[in-house]
């Protein structure tokens, strides 16, 4: 997917000015940046929720179609069970009820919620709700995945559990993913590449990460150096 020379301004506030960025097919691009520098705008343009003032978004054939969007909050339907919340995301694509139910069940098992599928969102903890949202995002047969800080404001243990659930599902069904976060560590652990916003014209930093995801350790010298340069860029932005 490519953002080609996109511009977007809210009144006098210019967010993007002929900004270009490319995400390699079936990889995760982590996007970090200070608040108000266009991280969510970038996702919304990718999702087609807002249109750029100029410029285009080019998607490859296999990235066209539905989108899975993981929001900052789980956005579950409050009157439907965990199971129905996931299964509903499949209805437009799978007409066979049995296949649909099996698929929903599979993703709920993958996030460890098979025993809670009869519960309603208000009966779940915050972490469980976000796991349902992850299961729904993967159950939805999309080609493009957009993540808007879905792990923010969670304690470290829960964050690790959710990141692991996410990665397990992503490895099973890799999709082009744009992952927006405030946290440089999260960005490095999940991304195949990391990009830092802060200048409307171009990314302040763009770095590929060649270490395989399952071999990454945040104590690793290369990753520590990348984290330090990300932090430095963010502070200077």
């Amino acid at each position, binding site marked *: 997917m490519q953002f080609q020379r996109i511009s977007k301004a809210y009144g006098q506030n210019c967010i993007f000015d002929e900004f270009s960025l490319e995400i390699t097919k079936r990889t995760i691009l982590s996007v970090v940046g200070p608040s108000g520098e266009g991280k969510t705008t970038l996702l919304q343009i990718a*999702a087609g*929720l807002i249109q750029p003032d100029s410029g285009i978004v080019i998607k490859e054939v296999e990235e066209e179609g*539905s*989108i*899975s*969007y993981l*929001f900052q*909050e789980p*956005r579950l*339907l*409050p*009157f*439907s*069970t965990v*199971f*129905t919340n996931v*299964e*509903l*995301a499949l*209805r*437009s*694509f799978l007409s066979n009820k049995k296949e649909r*139910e*099996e698929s*929903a*069940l599979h993703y709920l098992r993958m996030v460890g919620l*098979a025993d809670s*599928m*009869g519960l309603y969102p208000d009966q779940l903890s915050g972490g469980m709700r976000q796991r349902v949202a992850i299961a*729904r995002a993967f159950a*939805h047969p999309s080609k493009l995945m957009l993540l808007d800080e879905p792990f923010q404001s969670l304690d470290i243990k829960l964050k690790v559990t959710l990141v692991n659930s996410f990665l397990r599902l992503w490895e099973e069904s890799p999709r082009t993913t744009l992952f927006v976060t405030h946290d440089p560590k999260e960005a490095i652990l999940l991304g195949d590449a990391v990009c830092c916003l802060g200048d409307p014209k171009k990314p302040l930093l763009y770095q590929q990460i060649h270490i395989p995801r399952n071999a990454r350790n945040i104590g690793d010298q290369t990753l520590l150096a990348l984290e330090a340069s990300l932090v430095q860029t963010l502070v200077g932005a």
Partner: protein
Amino acid sequence: MSSLKRSLILFFSSAFLLLLWQVGSVMLDSQILLPGLGPVFSALVELVRQKPFTTNVFSTVVRALESFLIIVASATVIGIAAGRYPLLSLALKPFVTVLKAIPVMSIILLAFIWFTSGTVPLFSAFLMGFPVMYVQIEGGVRQKDRLLDEMCRLYDIHGKDKLIHYTIPSLLPFFVIGSRATLSMVWKVVIAAEVLTVPRFGVGSRMQLAQVQLETDQVLSWTLIAILLTALGDLLFDSLAWSLRKLKKHVDARRVECSSKG
């Protein structure tokens, strides 16, 4: 709060109300101004035994239900449309404001000039009850969660699925609150209109006749019947809402059970 504690509080506050009534009656010492509990309950038993009692109550109930159903159907449709289209909401605003502000008696008196006595309660109740229901439904549609709407769009949840799993459940609380308030309003207006227009049968007609003959015990007996009708309406609503919630949970649980068994 436990249900026992709730019941005890309700019991004692009702008993206090009856005690106030009895004390007032003893102090005034006048069967015309305020008869005591005993004579009123005797009059009530006597009324229930008389043959036209059922016809009187039935006529009022039919008028109230007719108006109520017309209000619910029309205000729901128009309220949903106004919630979705701000221009329609704006166009309806003067009508709704006038209906909310106009005194009940003005409507009843005007309706009495225009229609026959049997139609007046129906017409007046409609005009008074419509804005109550309309405001709730319109507000419900407007307050729909924009974020959930966006989620439904992105996850391709459309049409029937969106209606059943999102739109109807999110509107239901507004519908129940609006219906309850409307029904309470409808009882009051229908009976008030019957008092003024005196149709052949009706709780309000009987009240008016009793008042003319200074039979205060009968006026109070009919008032108690009107209160009972309102309370029964509320109870019916609560039971209906409870049964629907229970049924939905049962259907959901059954679905999950079937799916997990594969």
